[in-house]
């Protein structure tokens, strides 16, 4: 597994309190929201905080979150592009 993808999965589990999961339970390309892990709008906000705190990337418009946080893969691509 790509190092960044691995790191992201650990962080997602921690920040969103997904205590019962480990990194192998999260499919890199599967949707995180609605289906998949069933995350919601508050989780999206938590991920925005993660982006800023861990990666120094500030997301000003919460609506952009939908695309960026679609899957772990899109998140890692976003980080790579913006760092």
């Amino acid at each position, binding site marked *: 597994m790509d190092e960044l993808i691995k790191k992201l999965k650990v962080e997602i589990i921690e920040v969103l309190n997904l205590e019962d999961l480990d990194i192998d339970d999260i499919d890199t390309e599967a949707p995180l929201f609605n289906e998949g892990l069933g995350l919601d*709008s*508050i989780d999206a*906000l938590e991920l*925005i905080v993660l982006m800023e705190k861990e990666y120094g990337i500030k997301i000003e418009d919460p609506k952009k979150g939908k695309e960026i946080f679609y899957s772990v893969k899109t998140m890692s691509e976003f980080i790579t592009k913006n760092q």
Partner: protein
Amino acid sequence: MPPKIYVTGIGIISAIGLNVAENFNSLKTLKHGIGKLENFETVHSQTLPCGEIKLNNSQLAEILDISISPDFSRTALLGMIAAREALSNTGLTGSEKLNMGVISATTVGGMDRTEMLCRSITHENRNFIISHVCGDSTEKIADFLDITGFASTISTACSSSINSIMSGAEMIKNNLLDHVIAGGTDTLSKFTLNGFNSLMILDKNHNRPFDKQRNGLNLGEGAAFVVLESEDAVKGREDKILCELTGYANANDAFHQTASSDNGEGAFLAMSNAIEKSSLTVEDIDFINAHGTGTINNDLTEAIAIRRLFGEHDPLFSSTKPFTGHTLGAAGAIEAVFSILSLRNNMIFPNLNFSESMEEMPVTPVTKLMENVIIRNVLSNSFGFGGNDSSLIFSAV
């Protein structure tokens, strides 16, 4: 027949005035109170506009003619000012105070002091720990006004002070109290400012409810109270009656902790139940003082709920939050006072900053001051986190 509930006194302090007359004047002259924070230390003071009352706590204490002490949160001070004004208009004197209660509402409580002092507690300031709780400001108000019988506090986020007014009405309807001072108070705090900021629903510009380009709310601070009395209680003092509280209701959206359901179910239920309780019909509602915070979610769902309920009878509506900001626990009571001013003066205060309707539900609020409008019944909404949705109806007498 359940007894009628009359309003005999109103009091208010907000970013647009220190009393009813000043607030009324600002509303009429379109003078809003949103701007940069001055009294308040925060990293956001230059970037997040708020409806701040431009007086510090010492100055508030001067208005009250009390000596400032660490025991008094700003929430308590604001509440005492507004409650005193409300009571002063009623013509009530000390002897009746025994069957009088105060029911207040707040979300911040004494957090304004706690957040400043919790890391530097001294012997002198330590009583902030006691004044932290929501009930403390209510007791400060009760003590200041010499009310001893009944003191209660409600906290349901942004609908809090409509709920305290409702609770007051219920106490009177059930003959448990004859007079109730009901309302709410909330101060600006780092806690709430940063809390709403973490939800990304604060506008860096002046809030614009119901507008297509709306981008969030501005926080505000303030307090307002109404004095409710039973029919029997006002006998001989009928000249003090300002209006009648004819309907009220609370419902829950039961959808999400912060967001409203797509079809505004909670809001719809609150409004329709209030109208039903008042024995009025939707056609009888002349004006709605909307919750209208300026957030993407609230304004759309509130508009949808209004359209669902009123259908063809598109009522006149506006949000006064561009004047005062969103005063959280005080909002319901502040907007109740504004609704009563509308009713008494046949005036509708405009929804500032509106230029273009939302695409998904194109509604248009009142955008200019309207005078000489016959207003017999006003509906006022406050919808809070936790899906707590409440509506009040005031009617002319």
